[in-house]
């Protein structure tokens, strides 16, 4: 196998053939393997959208349930779980709506299920009710005490930490550990049963800190470090610089 060429150096020829074959190969493969509708809307296969739209619908939506389970719906709307859709807990139930005998939605009795949402996790928003699973009535089924459709607790939570666990935890290990929440917050009685209707107040004036930290404050705690309220921090709120639930005084 000898290749003859007059002007082109001999070694360029096989390389050119290989590269040409490679690039042509890629183009040919592209032609066959890249789906026809690729790139129509974006960097994906446009057909995929229709294919997904054509999949059978598994969820029926909560309105579908109301037709037959209106009692449960009414109960649910009266309590804390009113924001949750039936199928959030019972799973997709489209088939059940079509044929109740053939398909029965799951009933999630287990503790683990409720813990998915209510287990303590600092990243949950403040105000969300959380429990420490191995301290809150361990071993017993949640649904034994709480009606999942009407989870109003048998008695109101005893402590703000029921719903503000993150803040309470942070305060517990801070310089303000001995302070009660209501030292700074005015909390209406109903806040612990209907937190969204009856709202707790946040301090609006720096005087509240001055009660203990002002130079000649007498009403507060003795060992609180003192500052000159008139000059310290200028015209800013104290909590623009110090987080009230875990105050630091870094120099």
């Amino acid at each position, binding site marked *: 196998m000898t290749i003859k060429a007059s002007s082109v*150096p*001999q*070694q360029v020829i096989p*390389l050119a053939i290989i590269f040409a074959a*490679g690039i042509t190969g890629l183009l040919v493969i592209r032609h066959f393997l*890249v789906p026809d509708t690729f790139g129509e809307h974006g960097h994906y296969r446009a057909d995929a959208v229709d294919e997904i739209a054509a999949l059978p619908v598994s969820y029926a939506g909560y309105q579908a349930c109301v037709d037959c389970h209106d009692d449960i719906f009414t109960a649910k709307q009266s309590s804390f779980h009113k924001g949750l859709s039936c199928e959030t807990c019972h799973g997709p139930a489209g088939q059940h709506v079509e044929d109740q005998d053939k398909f029965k939605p799951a009933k999630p009795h287990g503790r683990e299920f409720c813990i998915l949402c209510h287990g*303590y996790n600092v990243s949950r928003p403040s105000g969300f009710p959380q429990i420490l699973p191995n301290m809150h009535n361990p071993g017993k089924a949640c649904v034994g005490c709480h009606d999942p459709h009407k989870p109003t607790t048998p008695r109101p939570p005893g402590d703000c930490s029921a719903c503000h*666990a993150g803040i*309470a935890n942070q305060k*517990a290990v801070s310089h303000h550990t001995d302070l009660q929440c209501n030292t700074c917050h005015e909390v209406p009685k109903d806040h612990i049963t209907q937190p969204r209707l009856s709202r707790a107040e946040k301090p609006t004036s720096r005087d509240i800190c001055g009660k203990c930290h002002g130079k000649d404050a007498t009403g507060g705690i003795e060992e609180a470090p003192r500052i000159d309220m008139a000059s310290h921090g200028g015209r800013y709120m104290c909590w623009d610089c110090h987080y009230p639930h875990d105050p630091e005084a870094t120099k």
Partner: protein
Amino acid sequence: MDLHAVTQAAAEMPHVTGYMYPNEAELHWSILIVIYPYLTGLVAGAFILASLERVFNVRVLQPVYRLSLLTALSFLLIAPLPLLAHLGKPERSYEMFLTPHSESAMAMFGFVYAWYLMVVLLLEIWFDYRRNFIEWSKTKKAALTRLMYKVLSLGTTDVSEKALKFDDKVGRIITIIGIPSAFLLHGYVGFIFGSVKANPWWSSVLMPIVFLFSAIVSGIAMVLLIYMVTSMFRVKEISMPCLNRLAELLFYALIVDFSLELLDFIQRLYESEESIHILSDMISSRLFISLIVTQIMLGTLLPIFSIAMARFGRFPDEMKRVTYLFAALLVQLGIFSTRWNVVIGGQLFSKSLRGLTTYKLDVFGLEGILVSGVLLITPFIILAVLSRILPPWMESGHRAST
């Protein structure tokens, strides 16, 4: 909830101190992602070393010219494997080439890789060996071996003065194209980390440059190591001028690399963004061994001093060799730690800047030590095989005639 409850919650995640967001407690980028920049760094470094000889005519480096190219090739072949293993679904990876996504740096990198492999490394190696292929396809004893070289020569036969000159010229042009390509290959890795805006440990424009210089450091040290060890096994005299020059280059590269990292560090310290506290916490606790001890002390300062002493002091050759070997080994440890500190370090602290987590290295499994070990050893096996087929030893200097 009382204090007891706080400690209880903390007890559920003993490897976390301070505050971590829940999705940060476990690391997503494992040791495989440490190995990846380590390997591409070796490729880029070895190639840049080879191009010094080729483009800048550093003749003393001739004995390691081909060795550097083969080293680069061996490591390049394995470099994407850690990524494929980490991402999963390797059978889909070719799709990246079929539907190029020009806005994704990661997707475009597939092309940089392909370009570097096909157009730069393979071509340069082919042009360099072509004459030998033709020669071996006639002189080797076994018929099969002759056939193999025939195939490798791609049917070319021309070994005239003019043809060889042409080979040499093309090789040189490819090398010139290759240098920016090598920069791109490894600069890209730094770029990917450097452009993660949300991560104060990574986000830095210096990142690609620091990566590049550490790549050059590791590549030179690796070629030096391989050269010494293979010479030992082949019972061949090591070319002392070449070794000295390698050590010298390693020394300068180390100094530039270290200065750049120091610059980066001082800049951060001076900028003193809000992340500085958690980063210094991390350096003094989680990364103390891998950053202060192995990266800086053992992997950078000790090699710098020992090479300086051996190269510029009055050491007998035997002592020099031992020192270089020792320094090059330490440099490998140091650069591996560098990669570790970047990749793992960037994931140890919380974006809340309030807590640190710990990386637990598995032994088994796809992301474990065993697989990593295999990935790190395979390039050497490939190199051993390659050097049988394409002997890189150039005691006599192959291009002397041209």
